[in-house]
């Protein structure tokens, strides 16, 4: 029953997010602040992880291709496919569920604990619109982060491939250009938009409806990470089945 209640409360929160909008002059500032916190603030970690995981994917692929009949350019092909289809959109989103999700839950949860949300409500402000909507809009720029992750993943793969001596630059470039299906990019960005929605709303839900004190803020952040990851994995499966099969 609790799960059903929470699912219902989540969808009511989504509806309330679009009701009684906050004044645009105030909302504009909140959106820019959230873009800075959630998008710009995540670029460093995303770039670092993408570059090195791209490298690791390349090394592992190269080391597993032991048959001399398999062409070396397959290393580049496998890296491109892994990075674009799964690593950049899904793996990075799970990391973002930890980084951005915990930040959202703890910041909104702290506002709940310290009665700042009550203060907004007393003033007649739609606190859900004020707090969640700017995060939702800011995270609509999330595909920009994922594009960078795709680029750096493939670049990291290239660096690992060349400096590790697994294949030549020409082979790698041939591999990443081979049998390219543009719809895979569309598929990756459709997933990214859905994940961005989950990243904005699920942690906000856990922060907004938390009860208790500082300890519960920590617990809510953990729960939010778990549920955001679970939903991302499930949605990933459903979208892959719908869009690629």
């Amino acid at each position, binding site marked *: 029953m609790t799960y059903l209640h929470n699912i219902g409360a989540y969808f009511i929160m989504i509806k309330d997010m679009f009701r*009684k909008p*906050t*004044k645009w*002059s*105030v909302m504009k500032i909140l959106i820019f*602040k959230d873009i800075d916190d959630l998008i710009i603030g995540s670029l460093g970690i995303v770039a670092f992880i993408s570059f090195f995981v791209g490298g690791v994917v390349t090394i592992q692929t190269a080391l597993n291709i032991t048959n001399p009949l398999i062409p070396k350019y397959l290393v580049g092909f496998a890296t491109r496919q892994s990075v674009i289809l799964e690593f950049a959109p899904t793996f990075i989103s799970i990391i973002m569920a930890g980084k951005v999700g915990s930040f959202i839950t703890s910041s909104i949860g*702290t506002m709940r604990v*310290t*009665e*700042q949300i*009550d*203060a907004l*409500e*007393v*003033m*007649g*402000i739609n606190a859900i619109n004020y707090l969640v909507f700017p995060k939702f809009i800011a995270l609509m720029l999330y595909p920009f982060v994922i594009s960078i992750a795709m680029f750096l993943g493939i670049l990291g793969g290239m660096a690992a491939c060349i400096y590790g001596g697994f294949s030549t630059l020409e082979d790698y470039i041939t591999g990443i250009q081979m049998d390219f299906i543009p719809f895979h990019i569309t598929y990756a960005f459709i997933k990214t938009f859905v994940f961005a929605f989950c990243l904005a709303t699920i942690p906000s839900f856990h922060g907004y409806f938390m009860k208790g004190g500082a300890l519960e803020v920590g617990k809510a952040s953990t729960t939010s990470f778990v549920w955001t990851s679970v939903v991302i994995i499930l949605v990933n499966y459903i979208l892959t089945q719908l869009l690629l099969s």
Partner: protein
Amino acid sequence: MIEVQNLHKSFGEAHILKGISTSFENGKTSLVIGQSGSGKTVFLKCLLGLFHPEEGSISYDGKIYSELNSNERRDLRSEMGMVFQGSALFDSMTILENVMFPLRMFTKQSLSEMQDRADFVLKRVNLADAHNKMPSEASGGMQKRVAIARAIVNKPKYLFCDEPNSGLDPKTAIVIDNLIQEITEEYNITTVINSHDMNSVMEIGEKIVFLKDGIKAWEGSKETIFKTDNEVVTDFVYSSELFKKVRQMYLEERQ
């Protein structure tokens, strides 16, 4: 004027407010007192519209809250100011931005007009030089004064304070109490304060409502509370040694 009629509020099995009726006049400082768990905060949150009572009505200058549509409720709430127990200042904003916040949300004033108004109320609460501080850099007393400034900046008709001097030293507590009373008289606001501090009662209790287990056990003023024979009230009022002695002296005088 705020009029409360037969207010009932429950949370699950727990019946917190059991038919409270009272009224709070304009330009007067009214105190709701009682022990922890007596239902004071729930009562205040019902007055603020944060909790919806199952039974009873609350009217603000004749407008019954439960009969208002969402836009009318929003307009009414913009006429309310609230000072929370923990101040509830927005951490991400400076003190000046905190005070300007209600103006940004509900008025079409220019930035300079908003700054002038915020300057004026900050001076009123003796915080003229704290504009650019963050709330975390301010002391407890300063935070309370910023909260009062934020509550009155948009010229509210109703001011609610939840234990405004909790956690403050006695001297600062008196400053805060007197500030609230002065502002109430100056702007003719209807002020309701939740407290369990008997010093506040002695300082500013023009009207006092005493709650016990969700029931209004007594109603009167600071002049009458020390003379009442209501046992529930005397138990609470004379729980400290200082007030016991005051009571003793009063009884001796009466004999």
